[in-house]
Every structure is written in structure tokens, then in C-alpha cells.
């Protein structure tokens, strides 16, 4: 159905062009994400210097050096290897947090909105409570408590990474949970759900067949944005000294190099660039999914 009346709207926007093609940025983002995922998976098999070895004789060499393509830090660590290694940790931490947190949040959010009643009140309240504490503060508090150990041999590096991921996951749950709840509320009142219900379909089937497929794109869109924020939060935690220990992630590379910006600026620009590009790419995908979603909505 097409109606000219629907298009005719207002005069006050000047000439616009209809956009059909996927924008160039989409491919750029796709390329970057593919590259990062490739490095995250196969990075260790690629040739290059050790990422955690200090090269005493090449402290703070500039990029395009013959044996250190992206230069070294002032402490002698190879930038290229660091970035490749960091891709794994940063992406891993962010993906785990968003996927696990997103899954839990979705289940809770969908159930809350679908069943309504007291469950909904309680869960909404719980989300509000968690959201009332800023991301960074919440993860800081969680990490400082969970990574604390009274034992003689205190929290190990692996445990700290685990705690970091757990904290970020907890932070993600209410964010995506609220989105899932909102989307479910909107969809569960649609006719086809009511129709399905009236035919005696079980709640589980309705959720699986009718709700989830419709809620998923909204979650996906915000999920992409969340990956970006988690990478940034991880970096902030690294600046505060409780990120991934030992400079293994982009955030901690940046945190370690931040003081050297006047001496070896690439220590800041390269990891900041890697973070920014990844976040931009994730935002792009999120935006793309959201737009696609809007279009689908408008067609209905």
C-alpha cells in the first residue's frame, strides 16, 4: 500500500536524497570487526615479537621501526604485539559480559513483561536499583569486594579477570533487561499474541515463537552499543588500576601509556584508536540494526 498523503509531510526540510545503498561506513565497520575477531582468535599464531617481553634496547621507539612495526612503549613493550594480544582480552571480556549479561537480562526482562503482576513490579524495581548506581561505580565496588581475598595467597590474575567479567556482566543485566522488558510489553499486546493465547498455546511457545524473534532485534541493537560501552568501562577500570592486570587489554595499554603521551604518544593514540574504531563499529552495527528495525516497524 502506498499513499502519497503519508509521504507528504512538511515543507521545512530542504532537498533530501533517498538512500538505498548501505553506507560505506558499514563495510568499514564490518572489515574492522572481522579483523579484530581474526586477531582475537588467531593473534597468537601470527609472527611478531613477544607481547609481554620488554626490549631493553628499544625503549620507546617510534612506529615503523624495522623490528617493531608500531613502535614500542617507553618500557620497551612492542605495540603491535600488545594490540594483537589486547584484541583478545578486550573483545573477550566485552563479548562475554554482553552475551551472558544480555541473555540473563533478556530472560528476566521478557518474563517480567510477559507475566506482569508482582514479578514485574519486583524486577522493575530491581533494575531501577541497579541502574541507580553508575556503571563505573558499580563495577568498581563489585570488583573491589569480589576480588578481595583474606587468604594468604590472595586473588590471582585469573580470578581478577573473572571478577572483572562477572562485574561487567552484572552491570549489563539491567541495561539489556530493561530493553527486553520494554520490547516485550509492546509485542505481547499485539493481536497475534492474543490470538495465539486464545488458541491455547503454552506461554513458553508464545515467548519462543512470537515474542523472542520480535524482541531480539531491539536487544541486538542495544547489545552492540553495550559492547562499545563495556570496552570503554574496562578501559576506565584499567585507568583506576583494576582492569585486566598486566597491560593485557587495550584499556590497560592505554592506562599504562597515558603518562607517556608527551614522550611516546603512540602509546596513547594506538590503543585509543583501536578502542574508538571498535566502539564506532559496534555503534554502527547497533544503529544499522535499529534502522532496519524501524523500517520493519513502519512497514507493519
Amino acid at each position, binding site marked *: 500500500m502506498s499513499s502519497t498523503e503519508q509521504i507528504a509531510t512538511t515543507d521545512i526540510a530542504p532537498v533530501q536524497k533517498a538512500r538505498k545503498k548501505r553506507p560505506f561506513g558499514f563495510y568499514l565497520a564490518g572489515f574492522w570487526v572481522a579483523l579484530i575477531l581474526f586477531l582475537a582468535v588467531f593473534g597468537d599464531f601470527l609472527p611478531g615479537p613477544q607481547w609481554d617481553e620488554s626490549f631493553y634496547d628499544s625503549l620507546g621507539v617510534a612506529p615503523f621501526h624495522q623490528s617493531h612495526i608500531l613502535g614500542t612503549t617507553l618500557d620497551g613493550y612492542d605495540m603491535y604485539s600488545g594490540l594483537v594480544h589486547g584484541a583478545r582480552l578486550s573483545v573477550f571480556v566485552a563479548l562475554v559480559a554482553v552475551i551472558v549479561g544480555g541473555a540473563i537480562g533478556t530472560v528476566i526482562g521478557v518474563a517480567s513483561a510477559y507475566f506482569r503482576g508482582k514479578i514485574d513490579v519486583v524486577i522493575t524495581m530491581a533494575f531501577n536499583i541497579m541502574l541507580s548506581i553508575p556503571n563505573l561505580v558499580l563495577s568498581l565496588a563489585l570488583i573491589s569486594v569480589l576480588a578481595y581475598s583474606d587468604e594468604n595467597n590472595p586473588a590471582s590474575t585469573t580470578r581478577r579477570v573473572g571478577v572483572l567479567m562477572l562485574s561487567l556482566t552484572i552491570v549489563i543485566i539491567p541495561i539489556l533487561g530493561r530493553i527486553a522488558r520494554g520490547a516485550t510489553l509492546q509485542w505481547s499486546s499485539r493481536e497475534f499474541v492474543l490470538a495465539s493465547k486464545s488458541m491455547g498455546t503454552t506461554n513458553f511457545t508464545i515467548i519462543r515463537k512470537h515474542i523472542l524473534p520480535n524482541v531480539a532485534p531491539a536487544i541486538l541493537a542495544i547489545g552492540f552499543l553495550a559492547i562499545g560501552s563495556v570496552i570503554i568501562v574496562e578501559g576506565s577500570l584499567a585507568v583506576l588500576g583494576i582492569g585486566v592486570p598486566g597491560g593485557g587489554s587495550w584499556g590497560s595499554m592505554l592506562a599504562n601509556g597515558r603518562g607517556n603521551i*608527551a614522550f611516546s604518544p603512540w602509546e596513547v593514540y594506538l590503543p585509543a584508536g583501536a578502542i574508538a574504531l571498535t566502539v564506532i563499529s559496534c555503534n554502527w552495527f547497533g544503529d544499522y540494526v535499529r534502522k532496519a528495525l524501524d523500517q520493519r516497524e513502519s512497514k507493519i
Partner: protein
Amino acid sequence: MTQSQITRSRVMRRIGVAVAATIAISTLASTGSQAASNPSAPKYGGEVKVGIFDTFPGFCVGNNPANSALMATRTVYETLFEKTRGNDFVGLLAKSASVSADLKTWTVELRPGIKFHNGEAFNAAAAVTNFMNSSGMNFLGVAATKGPAAATAAYGHTLGTAVPFQSNVLKATAVGETTVVYSLDRPQNDFLGTLYASGRGFVRAPAQLIDKTTCSGTPIGTGPFKAVSFTTDEMIVAKNAEYWRKDPVTGNKLPYIDKITFTNIKESSSRQAAVQRGAIDAAMFSGASEGQYIQALRKQKQLVEYKSPAEYYPSLWLNQGKPGSPFKSKNARLAVLSCIDRVNWVKTRTKGEGVVSKSLVGPNNIMYTTSGFQKYSVEEAKKYVEAYKAETGATELAFAGPTDTSSVSVGNAKFFQTMMAKCGIKYDFVTEEGAVIIGKAFNPSPAAGSHYNAYDSIAILLFEGTDTTFNLPFVLTNGFASTSKNPLAGIFRTSIGSILGLNHHSNTDVDKLFYEGQAAQSKALAASKYKAGTALLQTEAIMGATFYFSYELFAGKSLGGIGKTPIELKKTQRLMTNWGIDWAGVYKTK
């Protein structure tokens, strides 16, 4: 009144693993060049901003400000004695000291007429009150009559790690207004060092000490400045118009400046930028971790550098007392100590600002000896690892240690880890906040199954300056000697007295040698005993060291008079120390 400096949360950042070297740069060398730089006559007035790198934990006996925070604290407080550039002592609040022939009775004459900021008189009674509180004697008195809970309620706030530093003092007695007599348990030739305590033995007003609710928050001293306010990261002090000192050269009344703001600027780069742009008048830096900033500032013509001697000696403490630690085995200790690549450490981690250790302490310390100090050799280390495995049946030599959360500390730990890996030693580091590490390393009441020091090893700066007496509680088997007649020994031998020796070793020969050194009647004899003690620590591989370093202060041309106001003619105190400079004689040039 002595104070331990162990609670330096941020020392971890300036840590190392160390021993012996030559004097690289001395304070004295740098004084000459500054003499000509500020020809203007001293002026009164003006406000000064100073950047430091430590937080303010409070001002009571239990709060031990780390070095750069100590600089701010020391504008308010003064010690009885001050160290001179010639390594002697000059009286500050005290006028002179004398000792009995058996080295067991020290009589200190105080300067008359000095007042605390609250108007209280500084006199022999005040000095004794300070001793009674910081040594735990007051606590003991109440505990004996009313029980420990009452004692804690009354004096818990003044109980700190300072206690074992004064374990050799049995009694302090006020004789008249200006004389204090200290009666010692063992003979001690370097008692003035105990009173100085690396700049931490300063005198608080009795009114401050007595009120436990305000003790740590209300600093009252005799110094050139009065505390105006403080937060965790900032301390503001204002001119003490009634300050007792005059410039002995010009006769000018001190101090010159109206107000100083000390701000903790954690980020080294921010501190560097701030002093370089003149946003602050001066900033302090640590040569252990801030090499690149120091070197960048050194190139700035508008700044003057004040450098301390390289007499701060971070050490690697190998804990023999902790259950599960590998370091009961000498082979394990030898393996680790042989695996320290000091040259590359200094080059990489201090950017060349440190000095490679050749002994646990530096050459201007009386304890200095290269004898028995483990040299870097991967092959040797590997042999020791094998020997350790054969000896204990362990499959590998593995140990752990803490690092605070700063990038530099984590970087150090990472570097150390890679270094150990080259010798086949597995080192795990644990990232925790500085305060938490300090709490776990010096834990006076460990839970069941744990230990006073929770870590296998810890790299930390505890040895500073040239006074052996200040270093002893850390290397002895216990802060209270087994023969101690100190009434506190009974209570504190198992708690506070035993926590400072992070090695928790049981080699009493070490104690014996150092005690003999303190009892020696001649400097030569003392030196030989001390060196023997150090050599024993080194050959037995009880602890290790990597480098020595200096503290630096960079000041703009807006400040004059730094290091030019002696306490007494011909007795000039040190220019730059772990606690910075003497601010009494500093003035604003514009």
C-alpha cells in the same frame, strides 16, 4: 615518638629489588649550582602550590604519611634533631645531646621558649608525653590497671608500628623544663638516629595526642606553618607568625611564605606538566618510577632541580615465616636473588635514574658491603632452582607477591615476572590496593592459619637514609630483643614487635651482629659489625635488592631560598631528603 614509615601505601610504586653501588649523584654536588640562581633578597608573603604524589592518612602516631606527604606534614611538625649534610645531627627542637659512657643513658637538652601552635609550651614534659604515647608506654600503664579495653579506649589511637622502633628505650624522664633523660635497655651509640627516625620522629602537641577523636585530624606542631585544612589529597598550611627560628645568617624571622597548598597529583604526567607550565611552584618526584618525567623536567631552563642522595634502598623481602612459602629453603632464596637483572631493571624501569645495587644498602650507609651479595646469573639461578627441587621434591619453584594498582607497580611486577621466567622460576603477582597490601603484609592479628605477612615475597622501600637504627626493626628476628627488659615486650613481642621483619627469618646471628654494632664504642668497630650483619643477610640470601634511588624536587624561579637557611651556622641540614625540603627559609621571588 619515633615513627615507622612502613605504612607508605604508595611506596610500592617506587619499589625495587636491590643492593650496593657507588655514589652516583650526591646532594652536595647539586647545591653549588643553585647558589647562584636566585640572587634576589628574601621577601615576605605570597602563596605557594606544591605537587606531591602521596595521600594524607592523618597525623596521629598510627598514621604514617608516605614521603611526599611527609614533606607537607613536616611543615607543621619538627623533630628534636635534624640530619646535616655531613651525616651528623644538629639540634632542631633540641639544643644538644650527651651520652653516658656505657651508652645507656642519653640526656637531651631542649631549646627553651618554643610553643606549639595551640599555645602549649614545648618542654621536657611535652617531649616525654610524645614518647609515652608513641612507644605504647601510656597504653601499657592503663592496660595494667584497667585492662586492655580501657587502654585501647584511651590510647588505641596512638598505638602504631612506631612501637618497636623505640623498644630499646625503657624510660624517658623530664628533668626540669628543658632536659629529657632517655634510659636505654641495651647500649646504643646511634640513639639520635632513633629520635630522628628518618624525619618521622616529630613532636606533636600533647593536646593533639590526648584527644583520640581528633588526634589524626588535628595536626598541632611547632613548625613554621600551621595546618589550615587537609583532605585525602590536599593539605593547606599557613604561616606560623610565632615561629621560633630566625635565619642565623641574615637574622630574618622565618618563615617567609604566607600559605602553602600541597596537592596530591597522582598522575606523574600531570604533575610534570603542572610544574613545567608554572601552574604549581614546585613538585616532588621519585627517581624509582618517574625517570622520564625527571629527565624531561631537567631540560626545562625555568626550573631548578633539587636532588637527594641516592640513599633510598628498596628491597625484596622473602618471607620464610609464611606457611607454603618456598623461602624456608636457602636454595629457593638464592635462585630468586641470582635471577635479578639489575642493569636492565635500572635502564628500563627507572629510565636510568636509579643506581644498580651492589649491596642491600648504598655506599654512604655504614652497613654497606658487597660481600655475599648475589650477582645476576641465569645459569646460577637455574642451578639453585634444580637444587631446590631436589631438596624439597617440588616440581617447580613458584612464589607470589603483591603489586599495587598503579601502572608503574604493575609494570614492575610484570618485568619481574618475565625476569624470573628466564630462570625457570614462576612468579605470580597479585594486584591489590596499596593500603590493602600494607595491611596484609604488616598484620598484627592474623586469623587462624594465616601469617603476619600474607605474601611469599614483597618488594617495598623500607630502608631509607643512613641510620642503621631506623633499618633494624625490619631485619631483626623481632623488634623486641629476647633479652629485652622493656615492659612492653611481653605484650608486643607476638604482635607489633614481630610484624616489621617481613622476612620472618630466625637467624639470631643477625640480631647479635647489629646489636654489637650499636653497642660499639668506636665508629670503626660499629662499622665492621654492621657490615658483618649485612654480609650475613646477603650470604644467607635473607633478602635482596635491585637499585637505589633519589627523590627530586623541581621548583620554578618563583621560589627562592631553598636550602639556604641553616638551622645553626655551619650546621646546614640536608637540602633534599625523603621528606623533601625545609620550607621555613623558602620565599617567593615575585
